[in-house]
């Protein structure tokens, strides 16, 4: 019998593919169903946020950076605000720190819910998306209550918060926190022992701890491979050292391990939220008392000349930040979100750079999928939890 002619097939996956979480393009070279090579192409969502930020005043950058990682919006703005506050040398009151912790953890829950819904939908468990979005709706309602904006509240500001907590905030958060743990049980009941889900995820997209760290995948991906690195424990910020919580870990490093780590992270986030909402008093300080950055209270603006001048200075010229540079990492939903800020001593930033965990996750994607099946690409992208807005900025 004559030799059969064989050749590899090149498949273009994306940029408009429902499971690429936005606009990621993968050029796959296939030998039958096996992947010989994968080449990611990114940049379709590049909007020049870092260049735009250099034209804005310090406070005006907050809404911009929130639009980078649009699922973990407030962990971007938290990193940026902490970074500028470090350059300014500001210390926040305890209540502000607790509210920021609460907001960061609610944001993590909201991001993990979207991850859970989309990831499991892509590998066949379609109904999970509706359950996950049902709970996320409550979190978006809390955002709306806070700032009138559901996705990008811009509630965390340099120097504190935008304003005091609204009426009914504690009730809304407590209602969510009492409802949510039972819902996590419900999600796990649908997936954790589901035979189809296990077969799609166990032993797929394995990455070792050394590789995960060498590729810069610090965050849930490295923790699913055995690392215990969590910025909240290693370099505590905004008062995380006073909270009691565990860092979930797994050792397998596959898609299923990343699933278990993120599910456990949601339970730990609920634990932190319960401690935070217990500490936050219904009213109190919502910004620091530095008059350079925080505008005076409205009753003084209407009655005192000095306060009126200060108010107009802050809203027209902005404030200046001492020259220098700083890098502040926070533990975002996808891993280490960091902000590197350079100031030249004026009222606008000289350089703003966000460290993008999604960029690292996509860079390492070929090492995770090569040699595997084409159907597993979708599972691996989903489990890496990439957000293209974060990747392309």
């Amino acid at each position, binding site marked *: 019998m004559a030799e059969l002619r064989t050749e590899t097939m090149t498949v273009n996956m994306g940029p408009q593919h429902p499971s690429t979480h936005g606009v990621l393009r993968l050029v796959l070279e296939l030998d039958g169903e096996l992947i010989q090579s994968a080449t990611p192409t*990114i*940049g379709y969502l*590049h909007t*020049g946020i*870092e*260049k*735009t930020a250099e*034209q804005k005043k310090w406070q005006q950058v907050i809404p911009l950076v929130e639009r980078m990682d649009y699922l973990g919006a407030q962990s971007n703005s938290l990193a940026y605000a902490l970074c500028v506050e*470090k*350059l300014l*040398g500001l210390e926040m009151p305890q209540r502000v720190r607790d509210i920021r912790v609460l907001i960061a953890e609610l944001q993590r829950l909201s991001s993990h819910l979207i991850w859970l819904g989309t990831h499991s939908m892509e590998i066949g468990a379609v109904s999970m998306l509706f359950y996950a979005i049902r709970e996320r709706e409550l979190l978006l309602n809390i955002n709306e209550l806070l700032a009138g904006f559901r996705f990008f509240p811009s509630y965390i500001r340099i120097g504190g918060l935008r304003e005091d907590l609204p009426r009914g905030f504690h009730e809304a958060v407590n209602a969510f926190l009492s409802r949510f743990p039972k819902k996590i049980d419900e999600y796990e009941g649908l997936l954790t022992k589901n035979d189809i889900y296990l077969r799609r995820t166990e032993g797929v997209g394995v990455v070792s701890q050394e590789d995960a*760290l*060498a*590729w*810069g995948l*610090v965050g849930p991906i490295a923790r699913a491979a055995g*690392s215990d*690195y969590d910025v909240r424990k*290693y*370099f505590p910020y905004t008062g995380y050292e006073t909270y009691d919580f565990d860092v979930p870990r797994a050792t397998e490093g596959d898609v299923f391990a990343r699933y278990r780590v993120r599910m456990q992270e949601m339970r730990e986030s609920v634990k932190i939220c319960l401690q935070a909402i217990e500490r936050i008093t219904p009213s109190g300080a919502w910004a620091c008392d530095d008059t350079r950055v925080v505008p005076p209270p409205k009753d003084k603006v209407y009655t005192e000349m000095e306060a009126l001048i200060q108010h107009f200075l802050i809203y027209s010229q902005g404030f200046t930040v001492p020259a*220098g*540079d*700083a*890098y*502040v*990492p926070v533990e975002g939903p996808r891993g*280490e979100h*960091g902000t*590197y800020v*350079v100031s030249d001593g004026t009222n606008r930033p*000289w*350089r703003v*750079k966000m*460290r993008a965990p999604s*960029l*690292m996750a996509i*860079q*390492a994607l070929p090492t995770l999928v090569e040699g595997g099946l084409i159907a597993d690409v979708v599972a691996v992208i989903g489990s890496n939890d990439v957000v293209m807005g974060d990747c*392309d*900025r």
Partner: protein
Amino acid sequence: MDTPGIIDVLSPLVSGAAYEAGTSVDTATIYVPVDRLVETCIALRDTPSLRFNVLIEVTAADYLPRDPRFEVVYHLLSVSGRHRLRLKVRVAEAAYVPTVQTVWPSAGWLEREVWDMFGIVFDGHPDLRRLLMPEDWEGHPQRKDFPVQIQKAVQTYQPLEISQAEFEANLVRDRVKRTQ
């Protein structure tokens, strides 16, 4: 570890490298001479007392009109030692920086992004293409002398109501702006 401590550990390991301590409000900062960068990075990764096993970030800043113009900034993390380090390399306009991809594989795309945005060439990089901007883009957008707003002709699929004279005048006007 603080900046002088790291320099004390590092200096005997890399021959002929003069390190300069940088000022910072957060982590230790070291200026590294560009010709000793790779040796320094290998020493930082492999020395047991340092063990910077994660390259967190590579970025740059354009300090126009200062000379040398750029600073390439590396953020390192040691998971076992629980400390961070910022390396800085001063780079002039047309100079080269050696790639550190052989030390940390994650440098690949980060250095591509720096090349894309600042036009800093990483010597020895196997795949130095644009990362975020389109392949046919001209210039490097994060440079301080790159314009913030670029005027390009509007693409539209409806016939424009415009006279031939206006059309030609627009062409001339656009050409002048583009060459400015």
